[in-house]
């Protein structure tokens, strides 16, 4: 039964390994495909993102250059102590000039040397305080650099108006220009309408959405929009410096390319890879499922086959046991003899270091060692008194008879040597072949010891079982003459461990 167990466990382990192997192959193939797909997406993504980032950058730079150039002139006019009217005249000229440029602007204005000067027709209300306007405050805060002032969102069109403003040379005057972010919005919308289902997002330093492929997102601040994809993006941006990264949000996978444009703004290209990766993943899961199924079926079949094999093996053991019982039945005084010899022999074999398979064979050999007695008349076997010379020679033929019986079947042929040589003695004094020492097969030498032990420890018609110390002495005496000392010693050890003399015919 133990054999059976270990066999099926091994089967399971082997199929486990096979599954692991195939799953490993599938997984590595899957990851290869995945990285290939990822690379392809990132490549197109980068190209796409760089194009839009470049366009956005160009547009922003245009605004920055425009205000910078105007400021150069204004600085020079202030230093040359030009009149306020002359400065206003310059602002009007500039406004007209930029109105016709690619910049979508409403014109230029400024707070210069204490006066609000406007380059357009616009006349401020009486309560208009220029130094409290965001463009003035932000320009001052940015100490000489061009400030991109808080974008103002037109809720009607979802477009963003933005102001570029810069402090002038006296550190108190500021010039500014309003620019529409329509064009930026156009760029983001156009880039996302191309083949890939991505989105382009422009964020300012405070993570406010300046432009977005989806207009309704414009104006949101992703830093505080908890739980949204935008917020997840910002968290990732804040914690890493990588140009590419992938994030998961709401069960979807995204690959993101992040580039910096003018004014430390960020241009993000976000690609939803859920569909593409999902298909890949489903394919992989399906293949793994099929492999597991196939291997499981194979394992099941293997176990079935194994069970059949075990049944057949069991059947042959039962058959041999039945034969052994038949032999023992011939002699009322040797009932169970073959069975006991088989057990003793197996134990000696085990102690000697036989494998389980060898032990089983030894057991079978023990069961069949006296099979030749079938050919001896019952009268001789069961005779109570002393045997005549003739009767004794008849008994002595049983090893040869057993040999011939067992040699008839190929499956039991190996067992025949136990039957033929179990009456040989180590010094060559036995029968039928009078062979000695290692010429006697090892198994036969073991059975010889087991056979002699059981003969002495069983009742006979003419005596009871011998006392244990007598038996021990007999084995000790036979060491080297009748028995192979190695196996005699093992038998002696078994006797010594058997304190209550349990090991006998009870």
């Amino acid at each position, binding site marked *: 039964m133990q054999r059976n167990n270990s066999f099926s466990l091994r089967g399971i*382990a082997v199929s486990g390994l096979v599954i692991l192997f195939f799953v490993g192959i599938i997984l590595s193939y899957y990851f290869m495909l995945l990285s290939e797909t990822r690379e392809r997406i990132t490549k197109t993504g980068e190209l796409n993102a760089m194009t839009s980032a470049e366009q956005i950058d160009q547009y922003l730079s245009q605004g920055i250059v425009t205000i910078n150039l105007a400021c150069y002139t204004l600085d*020079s006019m202030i230093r040359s102590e030009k009149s306020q009217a002359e400065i206003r005249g310059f602002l009007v000229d500039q406004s007209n000039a930029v109105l016709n440029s690619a910049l979508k602007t409403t014109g230029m204005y400024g707070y210069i040397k204490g006066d609000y000067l406007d380059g357009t027709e616009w006349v401020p209300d009486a309560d208009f305080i220029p130094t409290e306007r965001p463009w003035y405050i932000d320009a*001052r805060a940015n100490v*000489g650099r061009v400030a991109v002032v808080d974008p103002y969102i037109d809720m009607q069109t979802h477009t963003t108006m933005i102001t570029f403003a810069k402090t002038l040379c006296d550190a108190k005057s500021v010039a500014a220009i309003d620019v529409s972010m329509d064009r930026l919005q156009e760029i983001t919308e156009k880039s996302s309408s191309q083949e890939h289902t991505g989105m382009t997002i422009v964020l300012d330093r405070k993570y406010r959405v300046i432009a977005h492929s989806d207009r309704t997102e414009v104006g949101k601040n992703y830093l505080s929009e908890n739980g949204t994809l935008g917020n997840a993006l910002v968290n990732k941006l804040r914690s890493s410096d990588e140009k590419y990264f992938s994030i998961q949000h709401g069960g979807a996978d995204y690959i993101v390319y992040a580039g910096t444009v003018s004014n430390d703004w960020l241009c993000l290209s976000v690609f939803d890879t859920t569909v593409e990766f999902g298909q890949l993943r489903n394919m992989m899961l399906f293949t793994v499922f099929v492999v597991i199924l196939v291997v499981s079926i194979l394992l099941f079949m293997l176990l079935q086959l194994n069970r059949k094999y075990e049944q057949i093996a069991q059947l042959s053991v039962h058959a041999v046991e039945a034969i052994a019982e038949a032999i023992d039945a011939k002699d009322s005084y040797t009932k169970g003899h073959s069975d006991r010899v088989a057990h003793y022999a197996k134990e000696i074999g085990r102690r000697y270091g036989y494998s389980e398979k060898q032990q089983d064979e030894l057991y079978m050999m023990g069961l069949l060692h006296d099979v030749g007695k079938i050919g001896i008349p019952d009268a001789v076997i069961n005779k109570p008194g002393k045997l005549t010379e003739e009767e004794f020679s008849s008994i002595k033929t049983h090893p040869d008879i057993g040999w011939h019986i067992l040699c008839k079947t190929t499956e039991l042929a190996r067992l025949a040597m136990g039957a033929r040589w179990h009456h040989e003695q180590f010094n060559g004094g036995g029968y039928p072949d009078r062979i000695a020492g290692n010429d006697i097969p090892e198994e036969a030498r073991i059975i010889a010891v087991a056979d002699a032990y059981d003969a002495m420890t069983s009742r006979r018609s003419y005596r009871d079982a011998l006392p244990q110390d007598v038996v021990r002495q007999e084995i000790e005496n036979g060491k080297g003459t009748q028995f192979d000392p190695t196996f005699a010693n093992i038998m002696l050890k078994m006797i010594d461990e058997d304190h209550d003399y349990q090991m006998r015919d009870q």
Partner: protein
Amino acid sequence: MKKMLTVLFCLFAAFCLLTGCGGKTNDPKSDNSLQKVLEAKRFVLGLDVGFPPMGFVDEKGTITGFDIDVAQEVCNRIGVTLVKQGIDWDTKEDKLNDGTIDCIWNGLSITPERSKTMNFSEPYMKNELIFVVSAESGAKGIYDLAGKTVGVQSGATAQDALKSSDIFSKISVKTFEDNLTLLRQLEQKTVDAALMDSVVAYYYIFSNDKQFFVLPSSLGEEKYAIGFRKGDRKLRDKVQTVISEMKADGTLGKISKKWFGSDITIVK
């Protein structure tokens, strides 16, 4: 059976090795910089007290400024006392390395040179190096400064920038201990122009209502960061984490608004 298990285990182990599971432990030296500050319950900030509005002495005689406000908030959140230690800008590296101060936090510009000896935080603000001239000066551009005296703070990045600029050979240079002294000297006309951080110049001109002019082109853009000792990674990381939190909850923006009128920080 045992053999099988062993084989399976070996395969698993090999798989683990190949895929690299099991974290790497890579901590070279025991860095107790943060622990030391937490145990002493004080965080010593080194600054040049003549650097408005980042760190300077106000009319009441207390050290204040944008950097000081941010540092104070960081200390409040960590639970330590902020100690403001005025230092000579020329010796800032020595003071940092001999342990007199825990960090230099005072409009300190990141340079490749300084990165070798210090452990910088992430940059938090931008700055430009600009020339300031008095109202009466005729200089309208850098090249009008030829033959003139230009003042600069000693030990500042402005000093290095001036040395490597085209006009260095045509001007004479005077160095000063701090920018406020330099601006006062400009006012008294002992120098014709001053090269300094735009952050300081604009703040000074505006808050004192002085008549100065800024020349249009700069000698380069820089980024401010906090400088820690080279090995003090844990302290630097802790301060950085708190600053990032302050960015997220709007505190940093509020402090920037207080000093500059608007949020001009560039913290991620």
